[in-house]
């Protein structure tokens, strides 16, 4: 990528940021609802039922459907003709901008199921007295989640982190899994376990994480560096490649190279090994690289024979020898010239290989022709 392309990228991103700033988007400060005040004194209207004014609520199937009562509702009792301008203004209920909601809630469905003698008691099941907005100090007016869990036994959904459809989206909240989310608690060996969980729980992960978050670690073909470089201040995190990983990578790869392989292809090893002049690619390029193999590598029964080492950890071999195709180093010794012909280098296949593969397979995979040159 040249400098012009880099400039283009940064300019595009700047435009996106500008678009955010100029639009109606606003930064989210806190995950909780915003406390609000009200011009309407609910406490002075206690003789009425809530639904006398909030007439749309019993039929509302979604938040936002039922509008705030209009001035006409006030005029049913208050004689506006005899009021002065100041009193008229005082008795005119405020208007509120239409809003979208981050929760799904069906008032109509709930109200039919809550059985109380007084209709107001049905409302107070969720809307507690100290949550009703009044003139004066702002109050948290949205019922808390305890109101839901007082009736709904959501333990199953909570345990599964199935937040939708009640919560429309959790991505705006800087939340960590709560204690009740034991299965998804990000503690202990979660770094190791999360891959297994994600196999059938990507929808759950996506409740809070978008894919750009996962990309920091998982898009190993395209990310600029390993995650630990970006977050040295996160000393508590269980990063896999923390510190001097270069020195210990060969030790861990010998124990479990499949863990490496889940993110890194052969190129990843070989690029570095070539630069360190230890790869077979350096031989192909006409060089004389450092030989990383121990003495006796090509001597059978030496204790260091490459065939035994390869059978134990073939992925380590792939780190340097998996890219050359027909010119692969293995082919220089292991070669079969066809049925009835002498083979060189011994048969490198595992003992039961022929039970899974017939000679016909050779023609189906061009790689086989590297050794079986005559089919």
């Amino acid at each position: 990528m040249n400098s012009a392309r880099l400039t283009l990228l940064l300019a595009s991103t700047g435009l996106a940021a500008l678009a955010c700033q100029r639009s109606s988007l606003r930064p989210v400060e806190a995950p909780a609802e915003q406390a609000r005040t009200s011009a309407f004194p609910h406490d002075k209207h206690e003789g009425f039922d809530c639904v006398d004014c909030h007439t749309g609520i019993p039929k509302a199937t979604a938040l936002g459907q039922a509008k705030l009562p209009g001035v006409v509702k006030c005029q049913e009792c208050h004689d506006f003709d005899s009021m002065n301008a100041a009193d008229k203004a005082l008795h005119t209920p405020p208007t509120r901008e239409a809003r979208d909601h981050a929760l799904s809630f069906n008032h109509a469905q709930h109200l039919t199921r809550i059985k109380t003698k007084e209709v107001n008691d049905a409302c107070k099941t969720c809307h507690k007295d100290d949550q009703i907005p009044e003139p004066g100090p702002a109050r948290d007016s949205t019922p808390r989640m305890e109101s839901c869990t007082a009736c709904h036994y959501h333990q199953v959904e909570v345990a599964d982190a199935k937040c939708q459809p009640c919560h429309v989206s959790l991505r705006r909240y800087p939340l960590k899994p709560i204690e009740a989310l034991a299965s998804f608690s990000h503690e202990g060996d979660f770094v190791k376990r999360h891959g297994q969980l994600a196999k059938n729980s990507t929808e759950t992960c996506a409740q809070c994480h978008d894919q750009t978050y996962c990309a920091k670690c998982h898009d190993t073909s395209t990310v600029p560096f390993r995650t630990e470089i970006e977050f040295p201040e996160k000393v508590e995190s269980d990063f896999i490649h923390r510190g001097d990983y270069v020195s210990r990578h060969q030790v861990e790869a010998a124990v479990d190279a499949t863990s490496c392989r889940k993110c890194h292809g052969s190129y990843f090893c070989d690029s570095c090994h070539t630069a360190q002049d230890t790869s077979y690619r350096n031989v192909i390029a006409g060089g004389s690289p450092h030989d990383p193999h121990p003495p006796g590598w090509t001597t059978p029964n030496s204790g260091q024979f490459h065939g035994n080492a390869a059978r134990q950890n073939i992925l380590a071999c792939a780190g340097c020898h998996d890219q050359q195709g027909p010119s692969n180093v293995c082919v220089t010794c292991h070669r079969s010239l066809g049925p009835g012909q002498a083979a060189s280098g011994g048969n490198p296949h595992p003992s039961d290989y022929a039970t899974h593969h017939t000679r016909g397979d050779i023609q189906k995979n061009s790689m086989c022709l590297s050794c079986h040159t005559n089919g």
Partner: protein
Amino acid sequence: MTRPVRLILLTAALCVAGATRADTVNASSTTILLGRQDWRDGSLQTAVPLYEIIRLDASDVATPIGNLEIALSSWGAADLGDIRFWQNGGNTNDHFTGDVDVGFVRGIFLDRALTLTLGRQTVIDGLLPVQIDGGSARLALPYGFALSGYAGAPVAPRFMARGGDLVTQTVRATFASGGRVSWNYPGLLEAGASVAVADDRAAPSRRDVGADIRVTPIRYLQLLASGWLSLYEQRLGESVVSATFYPVRHLDFTLDYRHVEPDLFLPRDSILSVFVADKRNDVGGALHWGPQKGFALDGDYHVLLQDQGTGHWARAKATLHPGGQTSTVGTELSYLKSNGVSEINDNGYEEVRLFGARELMPALTGTLDLMAYFFNQDVNGEPRSLAATATLAYGFARGWRAALAGTAGSTPFMERQFEIMGKLVYEQTYATREVK
């Protein structure tokens, strides 16, 4: 104009257009300046790369046909010193580099039942994850059933010594596709069956089928099992079974068993894939215990069972917050021992690590991290690796953070190692909707 650049521009344009109509926009910009020594074939070079990393995700962008999600994660870098050696495992001969990690548009239709994603994305569909340039879809069906599938070109690294090879993760392919059918019984189980096919031009790279299940029979127990089979070799590539218990608050422990056949992690058109049918197993468990507020113990141990011998992998970690969340002290000990037939596969280490963090003043936090590894056999002629990292992190305004880090050490490949890092981060979530 190359494909990645076109992808950057397209996605950035969509982000500009979409951000203004999105419900929620997560945006971050990270600027990092590194100064370090690269060890290259016995000589040291001074690399000073400057990175700019942009991440943007606009969700619930309202359109007449449905809601969209637009995601972009991208970076650019300039080498102010020597061209750095470590470039995601490869070399580059260019002072300017950059790439797109994620760049997709996702449409959400039919009351969130149908999801279509187009662009650069990572697909985790029951089997091993794969990063593709292509499309994926998920359809939620009645009674908890769901269907998903993907098709596209696996993303190959752009920066490497040889160039042009298409190996990424376990795939070397020009085209990959797959799918999964799953069933979810809320609160009890989720089960799925998957298939993955990949071809390297005309040659087969992968032909795998897999199955997975997660069962939560009671609140205190979660059972996981998954595995995949190579149809090409008719052998099991990997299978995992685990049980996690949550007997009381702040205590959980896991018992697990894993079987792998490493050669099946190679593409089927790799010549090395036909030499071995080795099998490995590991059995063990992990524990997390928080006996009191501000104190946690973690530990895990696995015994590694191979035809050639037995290995061990163990770790213990204690973390204490003596002054609440504003201070942290911790220690970590680990032990690793393989048991190979050749010295190239036979090594191990013991690790001792001490770490701590403290809020020095409001919004200013300092950390210290000391690590020592002692190898069973010398690595590059050296028996140990020592490293110390100190950082200062300052949150100076809403959404803004700055950090300074310095590392010094002595490792098998560098007798004296010094690195510095400066970082400036802006991270903010924007929303139009008010939480009601």
